[in-house]
């Protein structure tokens, strides 16, 4: 290109925005638009995570992960309400397992029933050990009792809900009726028509699950009465004294009473 032209263009280029000017302008713009710099993206994510869960849950989850889960996980297994690792058990381990159990409803019913069994056993152990140490059951701190009552109630509701779902599903299949309220539309659409044999089998399995639940209730009847945990009346599946959600399992039903954490 003609040198004159070249020089001409170079002169023009001298008018360009310098790096400093650009950076300054960029910062001004970001401030005005209230954009935080990229390094703060992690801060934003952190803030969102910690809104949903209290800090100690995150801290313990992190510890569990970092310290190589199995050791602590095993220790948590035997934890009772009031123990250090009990919260890890309830709020970290079990939710994870629950998520892994996944969508299969009969497995879910089993899972929740099993967990309910654990809750009841924990309560029994706690109260009996208190007795052994010479304290009366009443002396087991009121707060702990509230927690236990809460947790057991919650778990009972879950177990009942899952079992109910199975029952309802089964009933609908038998009668070939319109899907009931408890069934989502999607479930009814993906439901495969079951053979007569399957139906009978499912019915059996279904009954077994209800039996399991009933057994549990019977086994721990004293405790349940003592703690005044209200359970669903078996004969009126529609009426629930507690709000039982038939939605996703990991939703907690609403209690008016005990506040958690």
């Amino acid at each position, binding site marked *: 290109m*003609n040198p*004159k*032209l070249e020089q*001409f*263009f170079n*002169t*023009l*280029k*001298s*008018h*360009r*925005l*310098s790096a400093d*000017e*650009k950076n300054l*302008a*960029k910062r*001004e*713009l*970001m401030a*005005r*638009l209230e*954009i935080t710099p*990229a390094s703060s*993206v992690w801060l*934003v994510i952190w803030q969102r995570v910690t809104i949903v869960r209290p800090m100690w849950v995150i801290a313990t989850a992190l510890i569990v992960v970092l310290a190589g889960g199995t050791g602590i996980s095993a220790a948590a297994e035997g934890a009772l309400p009031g123990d250090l690792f009990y919260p890890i058990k309830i709020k970290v381990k079990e939710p994870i397992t629950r998520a892994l159990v996944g969508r299969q409803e009969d497995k879910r019913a089993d899972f929740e029933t099993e967990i309910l069994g654990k809750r009841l056993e924990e309560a029994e152990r706690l109260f009996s050990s208190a007795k052994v140490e010479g304290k009366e059951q009443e002396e087991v701190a009121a707060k702990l009792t509230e927690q236990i009552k809460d947790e057991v109630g919650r778990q009972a509701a879950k177990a009942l809900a899952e079992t109910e779902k199975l029952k309802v599903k089964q009933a609908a299949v038998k009668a070939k009726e319109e899907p009931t309220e408890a069934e989502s539309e999607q479930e009814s659409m993906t439901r495969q028509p079951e053979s007569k044999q399957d139906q009978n089998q499912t019915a059996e399995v279904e009954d077994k699950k209800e039996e399991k639940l009933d057994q549990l209730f019977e086994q721990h009847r004293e405790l349940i009465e003592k703690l005044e945990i209200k359970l669903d009346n078996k004969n009126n599946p529609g009426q629930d004294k507690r709000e039982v959600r038939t939605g996703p399992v990991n939703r907690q039903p609403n209690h008016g009473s005990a506040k958690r954490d």
Partner: protein
Amino acid sequence: METNPKMEKLFLKAYDDYAEAIFTHCFFKTSDRELAKDLMQQTFLQAWVYLRQGKEIKEFRPFLYRLANNLVIDWYRRKKSDSLDRMMDEGFNPAEENLSVELEAEANQALKLLDKLDPDDKELIVWRYVEELSPGEIASMLSERENTVSVRIHRALKKLHQLLND
């Protein structure tokens, strides 16, 4: 609509990519450095508002150029309708911060020369030889064929050459 990190990232990247181009574009249309910076900021501000309304920006460059052009046009309109005093004020070139006096004189000369071109030719020259866009890129911005653009650039360059030699 809420701001999300992805939107911000996209926006900031567009800024990194096109801020200079927008500034240059505004500068050569107004011959006023501070004003050009201002218009550049306003351009991006408007783009941000657009994003926050939930609208999608498919291609930033032509979009930003359109915004910048409109801002420049608005500025000219306001300038025309202002009082004579005000016009005289704005006629003064603000001090060039980073250029020496000599360079400034030369730069102003160059600007004046450039202004002798048709606005369209001037735009092509600036895009091609100051912002160093390729003919293909320019063509896509103008929605013209690359060939057409190349020819026009060539003609504009010839005219400029002539002006320089006068």
